């Protein structure tokens, strides 16, 4: 497909869009992976949020019954 004399501007625009959008997606996915890994690490160490600990504390007596 011949984009004429201004092919550089057109290709440049689409290329820039691709690089910025894919860059944003990759950056966001990496951030998500890091946070999930940190969360899994804390859970493996037995660390809980106070709300989780409270709900677990409430659930425990019922579980015994």
């Amino acid at each position, binding site marked *: 497909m011949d*984009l004429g004399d201004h*092919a550089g501007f057109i290709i*440049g625009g689409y290329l820039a869009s691709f690089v910025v959008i894919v860059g944003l997606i990759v950056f966001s996915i990496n951030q*998500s992976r890091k946070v999930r890994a940190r969360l899994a690490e*804390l859970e493996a160490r037995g*660390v809980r949020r106070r709300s989780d600990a409270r709900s677990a504390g409430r659930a425990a007596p019922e579980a015994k019954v």
Partner: protein
Amino acid sequence: MGITNTLANPTRFMSYSGKILPVTWALALVMILAGLYYAFPGSPPDYQMGEVVRLMYIHPQAAWLAMLTYVLMAIAALGTIIWRHPLADVLQKAAAPIGACFALLGLITGMLWGQPTWGTYWVWDARLTSFLILFIMFLGLIAIWATVDDPGRAARIAAILTLVGAVNIPIIYFSVQIWSTLHQPQGLLQGQTDEHFLPPMFLMLGGYTFLFISILLLRMRTEILGRRVRTMQLTSVTAEA
């Protein structure tokens, strides 16, 4: 307020967004691929602009999403200040980098479109200058989130600045009607766009919008999990002390 109240619970939000995300990613991919087909072999060159018209399928879309992002952030800012909505500051923080990227793309693609059509990459006219200010505001908000340690305090500062900066949105939108600018007015809304150019425009607009929703949900989920990690770390340190 029914839906927002339902989604206000971060756990419920995580559940719903986890189900929605694969659908929005798929819709974004399909619409952008179809849009790219119509953007190149599937549509003719413009009788005045020639092949450069193909930039019309990525430039207004990026600009529209940058403004939509800011409007969403302004609504979320109200949520933070007035209702202290649990997800409002999460949305504000998650959306700012997306807005910055789309604003940057609006500027880059606009400059690349400007040179062959106007004969210059940049002029300090009302539309271009107000849009550059929008980009700088996104960067400023990202800087606030990055430098203020306490997320609650960062949210309040960011919310106030977002609401002050919201005055720029109508200025951007109406600048081409109020002032004499090189930038052309919105032809699409006035029915001035030829029907051959509409499929790629709307497909790319839909694709970009679903892409925006997908990235926003992904980043909001990450932010919620990040806050859980922070809480757990604090709990851990308190327990050890």
